[in-house]
């Protein structure tokens, strides 16, 4: 299956990709292609937009309309694409730094507007590209090259931030949970509105090494061992959930989408100014 997906949707002359051995981003990138493959949409209409970071390099490998923008600005560029041509399906691939640090404002405002973008955050809890500085999702007390004494910041939960800012489809996937993540990705893309999948990735090179989380297989095994499905989580106490990560869909509503609302304004003037 993977093999055909790669053949079909990847720029094979760009391979091997730049991700380090064992980097979860490679798996997640493939998962997106698998999810797209299931969609009944014209693949030529799919745009992939990314910012800057290891994660954001993904767009360069995938054979769609792809744009690798500036750090933090992927969602703002994507907003422009979608507004200018609402017929395009616009997907953002970003990192925890790109989306939640420098790009945090665009993230919450796009969510507020509920514009029809699908955002996949490759969340490795670190700035990978620049060499392991802590990010807004690095857990408190963990280490990064700029947190040599342990991180004193509280970390953002990307899924919660999305939900409370107004996103209308929110879910969490992981590198380990391939099939489930692909399904969530597919649903996120089909959802008409601002949808976010917080994709737990793993950066063995920096986050893993700095925090004694072992090598890539250990980090992925950790995902396997600590994930709880969102449905099941609802039945669990806070205590039971400590140290666990909730995967699956965590929020969904049907608020009207932004470009659809704007279309109604345009429609007033179809056929000339009245």
């Amino acid at each position: 299956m993977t093999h055909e997906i790669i053949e079909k949707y990847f720029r094979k002359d760009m391979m091997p990709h730049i991700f380090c051995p064992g980097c979860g981003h490679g798996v997640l990138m493939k998962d997106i292609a698998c999810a797209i493959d299931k969609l009944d949409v014209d693949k030529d209409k799919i745009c992939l937009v990314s910012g800057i970071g290891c994660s954001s390099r993904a767009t360069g490998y995938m054979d769609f309309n792809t744009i690798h923008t500036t750090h933090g600005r992927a969602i703002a560029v994507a907003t422009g694409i979608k507004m200018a041509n609402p017929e395009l399906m616009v997907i953002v691939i970003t990192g925890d730094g790109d989306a939640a640090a420098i790009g945090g404002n665009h993230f919450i405002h796009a969510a507020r507007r509920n514009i029809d973008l699908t955002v996949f955050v490759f969340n490795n809890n670190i700035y990978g590209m620049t060499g392991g500085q802590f990010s807004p999702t690095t857990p408190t007390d963990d280490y990064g090259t700029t947190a040599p004494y342990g991180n004193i910041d509280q970390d953002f939960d990307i899924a919660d931030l999305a939900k409370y800012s107004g996103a209308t489809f929110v879910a969490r996937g992981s590198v380990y949970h391939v099939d489930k993540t692909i399904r969530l990705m597919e649903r996120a893309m089909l959802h008409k509105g601002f949808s976010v999948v917080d994709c737990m990735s793993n950066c063995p090179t920096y986050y893993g090494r700095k925090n004694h989380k072992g090598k890539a297989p250990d980090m992925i095994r950790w995902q396997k061992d600590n994930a709880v499905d969102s449905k099941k989580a609802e039945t669990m106490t806070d205590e039971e959930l400590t140290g666990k990560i909730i995967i699956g869909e965590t929020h969904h509503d049907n608020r009207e989408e932004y470009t659809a609302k704007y279309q109604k304004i345009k429609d007033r003037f179809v056929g000339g100014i009245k």
Partner: protein
Amino acid sequence: MASTLKTLFVDKSLCKGCGICVAFCPKSVLNISNEKVNIIDETLCIGCGMCEKLCPDYAIYLNEKEGK
């Protein structure tokens, strides 16, 4: 679905030797040697596809049609 018809392929030019496939293979089909994946015993393979799903470099995969 896990059919024995499937054959395991490795593209060593893509493999970065991360060991994920080895770690998650439910059988002892694979190991790492010289920083690349290596098929020790294909006959043990049950075609579960874990290696393919979790390989970040698309270097290992099952194929139903062609033989090795």
